[in-house]
């Protein structure tokens, strides 16, 4: 493979901070990224993930902390001196240049020989499967094709690090799934590190080796997709990872587990982090809360949506608590059902964990 990432072992963010006026957009982000890793920065809008990416690219200067590529400090370098590839949310293709000239732009900035440029551009075009579109202008391409040109343009210079800023947010659902697989394939092919910003937890789970969940400019949790899915460290991370049922409850110890009282029902759950007896927050994914004749929670069905295999439902308990759950068989509005969840899938957090 001729397109291969420039060699490095580790990218280190050390207390990376950025302030806009009186607003702390980034509050000391520390993270190590190894070569070949795919990292997703995940968080709601305004959490600082795009700021972090722009700081890495050099488009924003830091107001504190440092960035290291192995033993070289790079946070004072201009973007053109860093040599990272970046894929912008709006693709930022040069509208007056053909696809080939867009992709070759970085190489021509390095003053490579034109035969060399042509060869590498053709390779990049075939990697993103756009071999026959090279002479077109970006305006003549579809959104997905433009997206692939943007990726080709970023990887053709063989950057040690590829930065992607919500690159799929402008595509339709089907294309998004296709491009997701494509991005991971290209990442594996070139072997550089990728840092991928997204607010879509599903995208992060399916793409990344490690996910960094951010909130209010700080890192809340770093972990593998499986860890984040099964064991969010904080209630707000759980909320973001699809634990739609976030309920206030009273907790009491019961061996390794905890008893939690949700309204009038008693449920067993697993304590996480600083969870203690007394006021607590209980987090349950809708697909872990299932209908069953002997379940402890009783609700009246309020809505049911057919999602292929399951029905995604919501219901209200006698005390007014709203619960989201799944049902394998059809339920009717107003029907009374009982719900149960495995204690290992009921996570109990300290009340103050939800800011």
């Amino acid at each position, binding site marked *: 493979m001729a397109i291969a990432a420039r060699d490095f072992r580790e990218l280190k963010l050390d207390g990376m901070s950025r302030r806009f006026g009186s607003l702390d957009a980034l509050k000391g982000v520390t993270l190590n990224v190894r070569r070949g890793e795919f990292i997703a920065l995940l968080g709601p809008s305004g959490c600082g993930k795009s700021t972090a990416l722009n700081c890495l690219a050099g488009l924003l200067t830091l107001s504190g902390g440092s960035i290291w590529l192995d033993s070289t400090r790079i946070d004072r370098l201009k973007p*053109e001196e860093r040599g*990272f*590839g970046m894929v*912008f949310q709006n693709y930022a293709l040069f509208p007056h240049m053909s696809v080939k000239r867009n992709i070759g*732009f970085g190489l021509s900035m390095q003053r490579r020989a034109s035969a060399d440029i042509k060869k590498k551009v053709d390779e990049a075009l075939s990697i993103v499967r756009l071999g026959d579109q090279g002479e077109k202008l970006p305006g003549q391409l579809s959104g997905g094709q433009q997206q692939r040109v943007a990726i080709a343009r970023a990887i053709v*210079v063989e950057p040690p690090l590829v930065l992607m800023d919500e690159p799929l947010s402008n595509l339709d659902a089907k294309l998004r799934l296709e491009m997701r697989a494509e991005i991971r394939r290209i990442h594996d092919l070139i072997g550089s590190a990728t840092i991928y910003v997204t607010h879509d937890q599903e995208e992060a789970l399916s793409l990344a080796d490690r996910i960094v969940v951010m909130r209010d400019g700080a890192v809340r949790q770093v972990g593998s997709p499986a860890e984040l899915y099964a064991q969010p460290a904080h209630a707000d991370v759980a909320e973001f990872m699809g634990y739609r049922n976030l309920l206030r409850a009273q907790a009491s110890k019961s061996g390794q587990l905890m008893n939690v009282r949700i309204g009038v029902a008693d449920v067993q759950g697993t304590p996480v982090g600083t969870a203690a007896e007394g006021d607590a927050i209980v987090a349950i994914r809708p697909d872990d809360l299932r209908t069953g004749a002997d379940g402890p929670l009783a609700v009246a069905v309020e809505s049911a949506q057919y999602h292929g295999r399951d029905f995604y439902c919501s219901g209200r308990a006698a005390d007014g608590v709203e619960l989201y759950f799944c049902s394998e068989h059809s339920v009717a509005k107003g029907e009374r059902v009982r719900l149960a969840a495995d204690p290992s899938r009921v996570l109990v957090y300290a009340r103050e964990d939800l800011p």
Partner: protein
Amino acid sequence: MNDCANEVAQRWPLRVRLASRDLDGVTLLALPAILFVVALFIYPFAHGLVLSFMPKAGDWLANYRKFFSEPFLYDTIGATLWLAVPATVINVLLSVPVAMRVRRLQRRRILTTILVAPITLGTVLIAEGLLNYLGPQGWFNRSLALLGLGPARLVHNYTGVMLSLIMSGFPFTFLLTLSHVTGLDPSLEQAASTLGATARARFWRIVLPLMAQGLAINLCLSFVQTFSVFPSAVLLGAPAGATRVISIAAYQAAYEQYDYSMASAVAMIMGFVQLAVVTLILSVRALAYRGAVGGGKG
């Protein structure tokens, strides 16, 4: 095929057929503007054109023949171009770096206001000021005298008119250029910088090609504005000599010789010279990229 078309034409009422060609009640809203253009532009232009072919003496082309046989008259074309072209080019070239700098400023509005103030002053006031400051007894020449340097002739000649054209024309050009520059998607330049392009390369490879369309229009508008220079050529120039521009020739024909037919001919010639230059600029423009200047979707 024809039968079918006839059938459609007969079956549908006129209103529907017009609407399918985008002609409906809303189209009437264009009427005032059209009347305005006809009354204030097309009619005077046609009137002048016809008038220019009805000379006081001689056959229908006598005015034009006279213009192009007397150096006193045809030299005005060169004199005007010699003022208008450099002034336009200087204004447009100067406006690009200033606009590139100003777009990143936080207090853009204050600076823009300062730069635009000369527009509101008007040419006559600028001429007044220049006469006072740069004239033989102005502070500039008095300062020079203190330094033991001879007086510099800066008014009542070519230099005076040129200075005035730049001062009154620049704000206009600058505002147009600023709107082109700020219309560029900043992510394009950011993308170029992550690909290793220095500020200089970003300007030549990204900013300038995308601005070329706007700069061409800008050149046309500035040129037309400076070509019809009259007050500053009279007040600050040498109206009988180096800055005897074409509009002075037209004025003299109309109000000193009372030969409206000749004046119309001069005006027509003036119009065609402008048209020729604008056509030239626009045909060069056709070589540049024309299309959206955004970076993609979004």
